[in-house]
């Protein structure tokens, strides 16, 4: 697969282009999100411990998650661009510059996958969405982790190897319509300074770096797709030839690109990335499952089988089933089938085709988070009014308008169904492209089991959406 031609370059657009190229653009966005994070922490720790009336829970679990996936699917990895953790980290690095390099044996996604699963588990077990103070502490923990890791280890070790949100963004950004890409390859061929990765140095001694290069080791001329790109725009600022575009592209096409990627290698040789995608896809279904009525019955049944009333144990079994057994059976089975068609080991189709499920997984996350975003979009208004009332004792604009909520839940089903269908169609298309790459002579036969898995997961997601919702809270105990 060759690199597609540069589409429309957002940097050349009026207003938006110059704004993005402004050297303080990222800092400005980070400052906005830092202010929001400060609000979340402050209200979470000191405000009412009632989730729907606290900015920590409303902004985090309704707005941040929803806007994050909207931004990813509509533009790109903007929430990594504006990540406030990195702003604080950069400030700390001014005091303590990191000297160590991230250990070689940890240079995979495994730590982030473990954290991703842990957060999903903790979210369900303790019902984090219902706990403002815990949500505030989670945000502070993110700040602390980024601070500690990146003041010890150079580069963007936290972003690339640890941050679970970052991994979620990286995977989803494979579907983004924008990508940082070299404008003119010949210019890069003639470049001797490679500032985009090494950073641009001052022209005179002591030759300090004045523009940072890519901290995630993505060398622009060899960069393929959005994976591991935080859209920090450091490369754009560093390139002395103004040779980097924020180009429009066909979303998801990069998933089928089998080329070696700078800073990543080949997708088909990365077990960790394949595992990350499996967690991303099956985790989306598991996260949505926690919102519907039948999960009570399922958890009770598991409790009966195990002879326990421990919610942690029951949830643990559910996680093992959903994130371990189900992927092993479905993906392993599909890979066995494809391997027989291709005449290869199971490993090859497994590590090639699993990425085809990314669009469907993103569709499930989007359907779920868009629901919360749109049904609760305006709740930030009465909650802010309530916070002002709590803080000052005076109402703001006539007191909390609790009737300001958002779209009625039932009205969103067509939109959710559309997002799922779009995701499933994307997965079907990408799977076919991967099959064409892996088995040009028997494309359909190689793709068939993966298309079946896609349809099965799509059907499961549609069934979940059609179920009545039932939201639990901390300590409610599904087993009681």
């Amino acid at each position: 697969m060759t690199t597609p031609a540069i589409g429309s370059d957002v940097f050349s657009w009026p207003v938006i282009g110059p704004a993005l190229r402004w050297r303080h653009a990222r800092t400005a966005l980070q400052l906005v999100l830092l202010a929001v994070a400060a609000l979340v922490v402050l209200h979470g720790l000191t405000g009412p411990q009632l989730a729907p009336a606290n900015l920590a829970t409303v902004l985090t679990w309704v707005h941040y998650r929803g806007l994050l996936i909207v931004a990813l699917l509509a533009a790109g990895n903007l929430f990594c661009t504006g990540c406030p953790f990195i702003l604080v980290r950069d400030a700390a690095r001014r005091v303590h510059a990191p000297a160590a390099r991230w250990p070689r044996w940890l240079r995979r996604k495994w730590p982030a996958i473990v954290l991703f699963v842990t957060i999903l588990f903790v979210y369900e077990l303790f019902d984090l969405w219902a706990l403002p103070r815990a949500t505030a502490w989670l945000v502070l923990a993110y700040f602390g982790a980024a601070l500690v890791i990146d003041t010890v280890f150079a580069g963007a070790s936290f972003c690339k190897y640890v941050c679970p949100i970052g991994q979620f963004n990286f995977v989803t950004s494979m579907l983004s319509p924008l990508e940082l890409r070299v404008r003119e390859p010949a210019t890069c061929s003639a470049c001797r300074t490679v500032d985009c990765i090494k950073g641009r140095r001052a022209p005179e001694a002591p030759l300090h770096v004045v523009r940072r290069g890519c901290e995630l080791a993505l060398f622009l001329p060899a960069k393929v797709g959005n994976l591991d790109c935080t859209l920090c725009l450091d490369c754009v600022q560093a390139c002395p030839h103004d040779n980097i575009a924020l180009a429009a592209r066909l979303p998801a096409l990069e998933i089928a690109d089998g080329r070696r990627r700078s800073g990543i290698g080949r997708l088909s040789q990365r077990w960790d990335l394949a595992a990350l995608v499996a967690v991303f896809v099956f985790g989306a279904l598991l996260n949505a499952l926690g919102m519907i009525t039948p999960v009570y019955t399922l958890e009770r049944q598991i409790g009966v089988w195990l002879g326990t009333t421990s919610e942690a144990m029951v949830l643990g079994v559910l996680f093992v089933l959903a994130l371990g057994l189900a992927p092993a059976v479905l993906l392993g089975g599909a890979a066995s089938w494809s391997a027989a068609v291709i005449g290869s080991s199971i490993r090859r189709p497994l590590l090639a085709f699993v990425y085809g499920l990314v669009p469907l997984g993103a569709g499930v996350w989007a359907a779920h988070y868009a629901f919360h975003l749109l049904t609760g979009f305006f709740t930030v208004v009465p909650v802010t009014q309530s916070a002002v009332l709590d803080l000052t004792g005076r109402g703001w604009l006539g007191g909390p308008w609790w009737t300001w909520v958002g779209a009625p839940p039932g009205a969103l089903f067509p939109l959710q169904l559309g997002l799922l269908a779009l995701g499933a169609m994307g997965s079907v298309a990408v799977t076919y492209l991967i099959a064409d790459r892996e088995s040009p002579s028997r494309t359909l036969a190689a793709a068939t089991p993966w298309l079946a898995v896609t349809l099965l997961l799509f059907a499961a997601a549609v069934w979940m959406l059609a179920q009545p919702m039932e939201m639990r809270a901390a300590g409610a105990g599904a087993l009681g």
Partner: protein
Amino acid sequence: MHLQLGSWRDRHGLTRLPGRSAGAAAACLLLLASCARSEDTPPHLTIGWTPMPTVDRESVAEIQLNEAMARPVTGARLRLEAFMTHPGMAPVSAAVEEQGSGRYRARVRFTMAGDWVVRLQGTRADGRRIDVQEDVRRVRPPEE
């Protein structure tokens, strides 16, 4: 040129942060937090439901509000709001009528299955504020 850049960038090429501004902002946040009003000792709240809360069916909340030493809260002006525990969902409001001896009554129609929190806000007869809440575990779906 170098000096100009140096005023904005350090040797790692990082943008200088307004450190003092960040400190001042943090101090302001702490100050704001300390300005938050202190609440009166909240009264003890118990709510009995008839029938048990079920989606789209009216349940009557029999509310008992007592101060310390079981002294009933009389003459309070209250409003009831019920929230789902998940943020972002539509709350339910209900008028609260006093029945005497610290007893109040509200008619609530829950709109979704799951866990809710009932929040009672208002003022006592002497003007002191009341803000208390109680969990309503698992409002049943209509078919159960």
